[in-house]
């Protein structure tokens, strides 16, 4: 059974056949792209003209996201920017604290049980001139119901008095840098850092394992994929216990499930040897739509949370250096064992010192276990300098830069965390390409919204939220950006032989766009409308989800 899709234009990303008008699909795979006449030779076919006015691109690949983006939409969205939920509703951004309160009051009115918690997410006070949300402001919404708002960064939680009371923290005498106190000596309701958030978080409805994604969350995540043109997305840090794997295997195998998910096993909480063993056994359970067996190692924290490990001269505001989340010995062990056993690692580093450690360990590991095509990928790696990019190239590493971060927190980095010069080199896409490091760019959803076209826009324009261009020299062009969100990302997942371009033999994964990104003003790229996707030859219209 062959279907030939017609389109206004097909951008194939296949260098030997860059553009086409038709693509022929059989059994979920691409027979070929070309003119109708060229494709007719494959034999009997049905012509599907659903996309005749649309532009088809390879299905977009999100190389760093978390499926919990789907789960978070169970909670009330109070972010500063407009954001689309899995059902296609666009939530208006909350422009000031009053708007946040109003949004919470609406949500409050919809819950009958007066004791039930009210969790909300994606607050970001940097857009309110850093005015903090106080316990008293949230008490205006309710004094009987615990309320908590997770910040967009995921590192801070604001709660009301009831929540503090339930956690036994509505008291004076608390002496903890993560718990600021008000003039009355009681906590203001702001809780900084995971260890401080946890004891209160459970009372405001944030589940035990925030990274875990349930069945409904996974389905909602896949809907967001369709709405943003994504056909393959990573779930970058999961513990992947057996129940979760079984659930994911079952859900992704459904005929109606529209995306390919690549979950990576998170290193924390098990020994290096257990990690290797688990990843090895997961690898064997892989299916077409659930690609298992890769490893994620988190080396340091975040720059805006001052927990990233950065090299001299350190943080611009003089904050002490951040935290290691793994010892060099364990990192070395995991890298060596993975090279030896052909397991694929992605490392999270934000600060350049953490990146340096990974490069050192790789250099050592590769001497012992030479590997021609390991494609170990540095995730975020936001602060790398050009010398580090040159080392990455020599070591055969890939990079996935956090282009969106630059837009949301670029001003913060310029003013506070790393200062002007280093802020300009953050997420240095142009340097990566020039150095010959295979590159992808990402959203880290739910930290920022899933949407590779927006991510491409960020990398092309390098605008910050305040409208400044930050790092003119690190801008990339539209072709490079489109490559990064398709084949570039596929390459970092070792999937570039299967997806990332519209090419004979590959999976029939397409992003269906309302207009042509190659013929769009690059400053408008983020506004291109996504009709939906085709995944493994199956059509998913965003409007019908």
């Amino acid at each position: 059974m062959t279907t030939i899709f017609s389109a206004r234009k097909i951008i194939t990303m296949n260098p030997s056949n860059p553009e086409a008008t038709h693509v022929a699909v059989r059994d979920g795979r691409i027979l070929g792209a070309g003119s109708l006449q060229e494709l007719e030779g494959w034999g009997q076919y049905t012509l599907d003209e659903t996309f005749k006015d649309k532009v088809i691109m390879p299905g977009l690949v999100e190389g760093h996201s978390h499926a919990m983006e789907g789960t978070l939409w169970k909670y009330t969205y109070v972010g500063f920017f407009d954001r689309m939920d899995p059902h296609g509703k666009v939530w208006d951004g909350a422009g000031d604290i009053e708007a946040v309160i109003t949004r919470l009051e609406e949500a409050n009115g919809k819950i009958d049980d007066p004791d039930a918690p009210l969790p909300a997410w994606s607050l970001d006070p940097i857009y309110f001139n850093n005015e903090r949300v106080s316990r008293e402001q949230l008490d205006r919404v309710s004094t009987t119901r615990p309320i908590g708002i997770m910040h967009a960064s995921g590192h801070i939680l604001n709660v009301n008095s009831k929540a503090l009371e339930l956690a036994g923290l509505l008291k004076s005498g608390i002496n903890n840098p993560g718990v600021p106190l008000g003039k009355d000596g009681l906590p203001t309701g702001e809780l900084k850092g995971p260890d401080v958030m946890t004891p209160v978080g459970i009372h405001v409805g944030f589940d035990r394992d925030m990274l875990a994604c349930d069945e409904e969350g996974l389905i909602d995540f896949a809907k967001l994929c369709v709405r943003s043109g994504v056909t393959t997305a990573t779930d970058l840090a999961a513990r992947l216990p057996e129940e979760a794997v079984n659930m994911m295997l079952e859900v992704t195998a459904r005929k109606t499930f529209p995306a390919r998910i690549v979950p990576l096993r998170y290193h924390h909480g098990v020994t290096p040897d257990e990690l290797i063993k688990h990843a090895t056994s997961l690898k064997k359970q892989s299916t077409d739509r659930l690609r298992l067996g890769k490893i994620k190692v988190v080396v340091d924290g975040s720059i805006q949370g001052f927990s990233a490990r950065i090299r001299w001269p350190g943080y611009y505001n003089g904050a002490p250096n951040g935290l290691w989340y793994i010892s060099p010995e364990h990192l070395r062990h995991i890298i060596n064992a993975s090279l030896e056993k052909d397991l694929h690692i992605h490392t999270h580093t934000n600060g350049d010192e953490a990146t340096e450690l990974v490069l050192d360990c790789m250099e050592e590991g590769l001497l012992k276990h030479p590997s021609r095509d390991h494609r170990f990928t540095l995730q975020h790696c936001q602060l790398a300098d050009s010398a580090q990019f040159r080392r990455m190239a020599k070591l055969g590493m890939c990079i996935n830069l956090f282009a969106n971060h630059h837009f949301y927190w670029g001003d913060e980095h310029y003013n506070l965390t790393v200062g002007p010069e280093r802020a300009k080199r953050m997420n240095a896409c142009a340097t990566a390409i020039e150095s010959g490091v295979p590159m992808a760019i990402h959203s880290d959803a739910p930290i920022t919204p899933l949407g590779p076209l927006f991510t491409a826009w960020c990398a092309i324009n390098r605008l910050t939220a305040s409208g400044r261009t930050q790092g003119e020299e690190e801008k990339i062009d539209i072709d490079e950006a489109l490559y990064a969100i398709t084949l570039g990302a596929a390459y970092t997942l070792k999937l570039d032989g299967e997806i990332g371009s519209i090419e004979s033999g590959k999976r029939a994964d397409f992003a269906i766009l309302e207009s042509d990104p190659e013929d769009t003003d690059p400053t408008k790229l983020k506004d291109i409308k996504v009709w939906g996707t085709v995944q493994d030859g199956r059509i998913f219209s965003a409007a019908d989800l």
Partner: protein
Amino acid sequence: MPEQNKMPVTIIGGYLGSGKTTLVNHLLRNADGKRLAIMVNEFGELPIDADLIEAQDDDIISLSGGCVCCSYGNDLIMAMMDMAKMDPRPDHIVLEASGVALPGAIANSLSLLNDYSLDGIVVLTDVETIRERAGDKYMSDTVLRQLEDADIVLMNKADLVSDNISGDVSSWLAEKSPGAQIIKTERSVVHPTLMLQDFERQPVSGLGMKHHDAGQFNTELVVPDGPVDACQMANDLIENTPGLVRAKGFVKSINGTMQTIQIVGKRAEITPAPEGAEVGVITISVGG
């Protein structure tokens, strides 16, 4: 929760290979009826000697004498909150921090959980490698911050180096761990009395026994003549008791209320005393 009902937590920190696991096993072997709960970052090559293990579940190992060992994985605070619901409750929690963790930060986090009180931060060091670690390109500040956080520093493998070197390292440690008492040990062997505040079974006077491996420690009962300023008395004890590792007891304060004094290393804590407390502070010190 009244102070005396809180579960005491001893945090054991120190870089990889400094002997934390050996210390944990040593404490378990010498628990002497005390029900310890050991919290470890992960079960690896088992952190517990095989003969102590009675049964193993996913995240819990049952140990002889009613002790348990739990792995806290990626969420220490959640695991501690679960532990608080454990029935019967452990007498004392020993928390083995990961090699890169900052024990002071863990103590800060635990202070927000009402079921626990900090008993002390013990940081282990390997005499042979600590100076090198402290100069490491990547780990230097982490190692130094661990030392800064310590109430007690164990100078492990002290028997393997010359007196000269041991003396050098000891004075270097004294500078880097200004709040700590430093104890020389061999293979992490140290008397549990020095490690875990044992309030129910206070060491009786005369317990000042010579413990072969742990070296010598002395106990003394200090009974002030009349009401005292508890803070002042704690500071005096810290300054004037050579080799003071711990102290705990009760004094009558100037305003007539009874107060608990608890000292670990050079850190003192004053809290209201439980009912029926009798005046007297027991000090435990080494060397001298």
